[in-house]
């Protein structure tokens, strides 16, 4: 018990001794950075795993502008403590010890690093490319500095080796990447016996746009606009994440009023998306009535956004150093009125949803992600909370106003579709409360403060609870104070993997329902 109470930082120093060298170049200082020798990188992971830490993200940097090779980074979290471990990797021998055997969640992070940066995870059981499809030339690593982002690449021939299942009555169902509905592209391959799914393999990357690479040719200010477009339905959260990381690296802080308005926009985004999702999940069980009713509610919120802020999804409202819009007294009362009517209507729909046994029959027990598996895979956000995990970045890593207005974290144990619907319902209710509190105590003051470019080599990190879950942004300034590397970790990057596990033992026609209850982003995953 005493051992577990020890902080991650102390545990790491105790285990690695002088090999864990603190680096003060990453801000805020509350997220410490330790540099470890490459040989002890995996050991550090095991030490932190023993302290019940979760692998939050793993990424690679090309540090040739600093005259170094590659950097491999891992971000961990336990309770309210975040900690970064880095190891250097020589340019001519780009290989680092894989963390996959310690952390399941490292599986796709490392495949991504291998595909896009060309650093090899030694000991990784799966060396197939991820995100970068096989029609790319093998030696094209777009995140390396030596790769010119404007090069036109020739398509090459290649094969993707799918996981196979053989036996009496086993058949394969390939679904996508183009779907019948208007959704993003992604390929799902099922192995099924009759209607029972024995394996699902996802293949994503169809919406890879090279966003991370694109950042490196943008100014810090323009970066906020691109960050708001990582995933269109999460524009506020991603722009907030980028801006907070930039502000940390640059050593400036958004004024209090700006931070509160950011939270207001973030909670509005959460409500609109959750309400839309509840309808969409019902629609996948052919309960169309709720889809259209929730669509009306969501539309009402988007129209208020358009009237008050000039954009339906409130894109580009969060800017480095503050916000681009104010909430006037008139706007505040308009939001209060809208919330009153949305809240009343929402409660009516929740009752309809609860009172419908045919819908309940579909959502209970479908797509169960056990608490143990959710923890093991490092799942975040509403999916984690539906599987019994007490995770909410607004509570564990509070930025104003969440230190004053503490969100309630709904937590369910069953981990099925119903739990994920219900977490959304509770979060909508709580977000309405938070917005009301924000409007009541909104501090006055300026909206934006001047933000200098970060010093050369400075790094900034931020943690934001978007509506899907915890979003990480990590920025690194180059030698000329330009963007050297921008890393975005959408919740989808960890949670897509969990969907594969949650679906086992379900039947094929229940997949759309389970998938919609996760509703992960393709764009945010593929970048």
């Amino acid at each position, binding site marked *: 018990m005493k051992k577990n109470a020890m902080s991650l930082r102390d545990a790491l120093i105790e285990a690695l001794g002088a090999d864990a060298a603190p680096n003060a170049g990453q801000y805020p200082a509350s997220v410490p950075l330790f540099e470890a020798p490459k040989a002890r990188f995996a050991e550090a992971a095991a030490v932190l795993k023993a302290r019940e830490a979760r692998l939050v993200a793993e990424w690679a940097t090309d540090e040739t502008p600093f005259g170094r090779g590659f950097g491999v980074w891992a971000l961990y979290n336990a309770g309210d403590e975040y900690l970064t471990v880095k190891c250097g990797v020589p340019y001519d021998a780009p290989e680092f010890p894989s963390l996959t055997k310690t952390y399941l969640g490292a599986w796709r992070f490392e495949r991504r690093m291998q595909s896009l940066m060309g650093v090899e995870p030694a000991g990784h059981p799966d060396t197939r490319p991820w995100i970068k499809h096989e029609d790319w030339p093998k030696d094209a690593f777009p995140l390396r500095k030596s790769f010119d982002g404007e090069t036109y690449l020739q398509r090459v021939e290649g094969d993707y080796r799918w996981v196979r299942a053989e036996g009496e009555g086993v*058949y*394969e*169902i*390939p*679904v996508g990447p183009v*779907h*019948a*509905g208007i959704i993003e592209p992604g390929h799902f391959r099922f192995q099924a016996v009759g*209607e029972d799914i024995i394996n699902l393999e996802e293949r994503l990357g169809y919406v890879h746009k090279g966003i991370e690479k694109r950042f490196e040719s943008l100014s810090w200010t323009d970066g906020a606009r691109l960050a708001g477009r990582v995933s269109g339905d999460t524009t506020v959260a991603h722009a907030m994440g980028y801006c907070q990381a930039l502000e940390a690296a640059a050593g400036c802080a958004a004024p209090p009023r700006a931070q509160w308005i950011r939270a207001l926009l973030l909670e509005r985004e959460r409500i609109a998306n959750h309400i839309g999702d509840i309808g969409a999940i*019902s629609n*996948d*069980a*052919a*309960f*169309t*009535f709720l889809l*259209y*009713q929730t669509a*009306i509610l969501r539309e009402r919120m988007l129209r208020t956004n358009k009237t008050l802020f000039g954009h339906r999804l409130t894109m580009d409202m969060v800017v480095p150093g503050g916000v681009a819009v104010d909430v006037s007294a008139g706007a505040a009362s308009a939001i209060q009125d809208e919330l009153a009517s949305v809240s009343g209507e929402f409660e009516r729909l929740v009752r309809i949803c609860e009172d*419908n046994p*045919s*819908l309940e*029959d*579909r959502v209970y027990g479908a797509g169960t992600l056990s608490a143990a598996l959710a923890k093991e895979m490092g799942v975040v956000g509403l999916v984690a909370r539906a599987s019994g995990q007490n995770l909410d970045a607004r509570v564990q890593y509070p930025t104003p106003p969440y230190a004053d207005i503490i969100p309630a974290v709904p937590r369910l144990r069953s981990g099925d579709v119903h739990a994920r619907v219900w977490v959304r319902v509770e979060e909508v209710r709580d977000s309405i409360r938070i917005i009301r509190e924000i409007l009541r105590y909104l501090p006055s003051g300026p909206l934006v403060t001047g933000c200098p470019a970060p010093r050369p080599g400075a790094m900034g990190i931020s943690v934001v609870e978007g509506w899907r879950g915890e979003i990480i942004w990590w920025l690194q300034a180059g030698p000329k104070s330009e963007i050297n590397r921008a890393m975005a970790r959408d919740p989808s990057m960890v949670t897509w993997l969990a969907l594969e596990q949650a679906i086992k033992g379900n*039947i*094929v*026609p*229940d*997949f*759309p329902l389970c998938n919609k209850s996760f509703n992960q982003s393709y764009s945010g995953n593929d970048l």
Partner: protein
Amino acid sequence: MIYSISIECLQIAFVLGAAPLFVGWVRMLKCWAHGRASAGLLQPYRDIYKLFYKDVTIARNASWIFRAAPYITFGACVLAGGIIPVISTDLPLSLSADVIALVAVFAIARFFTALAGMDAGTAFGGMGSSREMMVASLAEPAMLMSVFTISLVAGSTTLSQMVHVSLSSPLVLRPSLAFALLAFALVAIAETGRIPVDNPATHLELTMIHEAMVLEYSGRHLALIEWAGEMKLFLFASLGVALFFPWGMAGVYNPLMLPVAFVSLAAKLAAIGAAIVLVETRLAKMRIFHVPEFLGIAFILATLGMLSFFMLE
């Protein structure tokens, strides 16, 4: 004889023309129930018209079955439209084909649609065919049991004779018919692919039953399949009307009754459409493995109807 043949032709033309209207009515009510603006009563006609003018795309490895299936399905539904007394009992086809033949005609349509689903070799087609066959194997016996109960009452399996008997006998409440009606309604939901068994409006390939089989179709082939599907819904509604509520239908050599027959049919179908929408708005689709239980209930109800005929009547 000429009169009968002209009535027969009139009825087939009527079924062809009115089936999309009925579907348009159901869709319109559904839109209103959801609080949406509807595309209007005539949208199904526009859809069929549009599809007829679109090009047909056929998989390279598709065989003649794939090309023939839409025509066979459509033809079977037209034939069924001549067997079921929709507006009049004066149908020569109804005399030559009884209710068992009718079930067989629908089975032929289904058989070829299922074959065509597997023909192109896609995963969805095979999946849809297998599910359709699962539903069919349970729905068809339940349907026969339900209709046989009425045959017992009428002493015939010929549809026009059955309608004729219930038209000419005094109105008495028969428990056997109540059971048979319930069974028939459940079977009709499954046969026509409505919620809670199947969802005709879904875009989710993995959840489809009937739609999964016809995913590969396009252009005029799809138009025929859609039209046939609309006729099937119309015919099941009309069959329900003919078996359980035939009052107002034109009898033998009674052309003056025809206007009344049209009006009463329209009113009854409008009510059935409203009932469909009521059910579909209230219910989510059931898990596919609950469909056998659902059809099992239909079979038991039909059996109860038959038993109660022997015991009570």
